């Protein structure tokens, strides 16, 4: 009826329009098929009969400002056309969400209040992609978040996952190392004793420094051997019994399952992923057993060791929360992480 009225008033207009009023008072009109793409507007029109004229404009929720509204209608205008292929829609969507983060958030909010779920999902996906893999600092910068948690608070909710047993393990290692160091010292002292009596202090120092080179080198090569062994043991992991059967029918189980599971969940894919799952290849930089380091007797090295253990402890405590880019590098719980090798590289030449 109201549309008939409109047809009389504006006979040259073939389209019907819906009138909308945003929270700031401005009123605009939009083609009906575009506006009706939004469930909230659709509901208002059908249930309350509003929107047909300027005086009876639909009032939009506060979170929708005119700029966002026009963006949303661009989206609706494209997608409400039935003939488009999925690929076309996807390409449009990817271009559409290229905007600065602030607008993206506003758009999400506006789309949500208009109950336009496909757009909410699209923008949420985009926001998730922005957040993914970034450090907390980076995220705070992007979204202008206040850094208003204390250091303690940052650790607090997750502290109960920070293990006393881990600290205990750490202490145990530390104690063990100290003990071994002491024992070695005793042994070496017995050997060196005779020399000490004969040489001067300078000679001693240069002797010790000279020995360091060799000592460090041998211990490094020992470490390498150990790593190789560990790797061998570590990779005899989860079975691939399915692979036996896979070879029987020359089809990867994944493609099989993909064929049956059209509409259902990816559970089959997951199962076959599991079947073919093997250990990730870990870099051989992590070590818990550092017995080989005990070849050094140099107190300077011992100090380094202490520092490393402390570093390790600190890293453990903060690894949960602040392990950011560090995770990208596989080195994490290593005592002999990058720091250690760097330091060891000082007196000894020819290391990485």
């Amino acid at each position: 009826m109201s549309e008939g009225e409109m047809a009389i008033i504006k006979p040259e207009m073939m389209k019907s329009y819906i009138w909308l009023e945003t929270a700031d008072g401005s009123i605009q009109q939009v083609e009906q098929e575009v506006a009706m793409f939004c469930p909230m507007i659709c509901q208002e029109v059908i249930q309350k009969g509003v929107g047909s004229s300027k005086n009876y404009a639909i009032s939009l929720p506060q979170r929708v400002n005119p700029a966002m509204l026009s963006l949303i209608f661009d989206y609706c205008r494209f997608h409400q056309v039935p003939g488009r292929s999925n690929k076309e829609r996807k390409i449009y969507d990817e271009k559409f969400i290229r905007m600065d983060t602030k607008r993206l958030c506003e758009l999400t909010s506006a789309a949500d209040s208009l109950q336009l779920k496909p757009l909410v999902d699209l923008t949420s996906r985009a926001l998730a992609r922005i957040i993914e893999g970034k450090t907390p600092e980076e995220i705070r910068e992007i979204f202008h978040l206040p850094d208003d948690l204390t250091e303690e608070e940052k650790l607090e909710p997750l502290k109960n996952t920070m293990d006393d047993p881990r600290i205990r393990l750490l202490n145990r290692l530390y104690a063990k190392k100290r003990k071994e160091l002491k024992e070695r010292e005793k042994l070496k002292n017995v050997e060196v004793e005779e020399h000490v009596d004969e040489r001067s202090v300078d000679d001693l120092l240069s002797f010790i420094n000279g020995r360091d080179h060799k000592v460090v080198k041998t211990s490094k090569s020992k470490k390498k051997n150990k790593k190789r062994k560990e790797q061998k043991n570590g990779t005899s992991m989860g079975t691939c019994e399915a692979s036996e059967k896979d070879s029987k029918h020359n089809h990867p189980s994944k493609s099989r399952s993909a064929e049956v599971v059209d509409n259902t969940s990816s559970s089959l894919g997951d199962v076959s992923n599991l079947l073919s799952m093997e250990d990730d290849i870990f870099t051989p930089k992590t070590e818990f057993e550092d017995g080989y380091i005990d070849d050094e007797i140099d107190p300077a090295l011992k100090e380094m060791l202490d520092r490393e253990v402390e570093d390790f402890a600190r890293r453990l405590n903060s690894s949960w929360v602040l392990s950011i880019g560090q995770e990208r590098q596989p080195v994490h719980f290593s005592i002999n992480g990058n720091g250690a090798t760097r330091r060891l590289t000082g007196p000894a030449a020819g290391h990485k």
Partner: protein
Amino acid sequence: MVESPDFISDLPQSIIENILTRLSIRDAIRTSVLSSKWRYKWSTLTDLVFDEKCVSPSTDRCVVETNLVRFVTGVLLLHQGPIHKFQLSTSFLQCRPDIDQWLLFLSRNGIKELVLELGEGEFRAPSCLFNCLKLTRLELCHCEFDPPRCFKGFSSLKSLNLHQILVAPEVIESLISGCPLLEFLSLSYFDSLVLSISAPNLMYLYLDGEFKDIFLENTPKLVAISVSMYMHEDVTDFEQSSDYNLVKFLGGVPLLEKLVGYIYFTKYLSIGDDPGRLPITYIHLKTIELYQVSFEDANEVLVLLRLVTHSPNLKELKVSASPIQLFPLEEEGFDLFERDYFDYQLPRLETVKMTDVSGIRNELEFIRFLLGTSPVLDTVIVSSSLTDKDAKMDMVVELLRYPRVSPQAQFLFLQD
């Protein structure tokens, strides 16, 4: 409205959760340190997905295991509200009492979707699992399944996926019948199973293992079936019975749209006394994929022909000949093609793919049959297992001279 510089924290929780569910659980939890408002935003997420990527990698397996256990326990303790989906997929965890505790926690928090893909081990599903009566999806891998006697089934379960589960066969049958809403069923890596499936709402069936006998007793709504049927080396043959297995298995699935069979499936279907015609026509069947068909065995070819001719809307056909010769046979002269088979039409068949063709008479006759009955045939893809170039050439020449009913039909010969 005050314009705060922070433009994301005040979005409604539903949007925040929409965003957080798209992140890995690790990234989602890390948002708790962003700001005071974000501290517990993640804690009401209803879907939790864990794997060993949640913790830092290490060459020491025990370390990863310990860390992962701590991580999951920590998350569960800090979590607020119901948990609808819990997925744990890792070969690092096998049998740990922690898993029992997590399941107990989940059973008290309204779990609906549970996926446990553990490493090989002796994990035994605890009894609290059978109290999760709101379950709509259950997926178990590498565990022992032994429900208490009073267990009646999961009344809301729609999807069941059991892989390499230690379970008594009658338990599976009663489990399936005890889940009346079941729509998706996948049983893989089972040995010597005689199974009778009664599931009135079942739509997707996936079977993989050494099944001795499968009986689809009550599955009228099945839309897609995929069976990989293996046979134990000791067994010399399937159990012979007078019932025609093809009818027994596929007699009650009028809504079938897709049928896929591997290894000995076609052989299994061919067993029994052939009644002549099939009792049902598969009006919805659009795709048939039967692999490892022994073309020397006339019975197997007959199964293939029966299925193809009783599917008027068949669009895509993929067949592979069997390289496995468990029962070496003399090729039986197949004159069935001379009978009334050429009266049939395959009015919608568009694509045919035949692989591992070795050029035996039955294979060629089958292709000839397809060419002569498919007016809209578009592509025939053939790949051969022959190594002798001359033999291959002979085969190609033979195939090319067959008359084609469809003017646009073309051959595509693939090199293996």
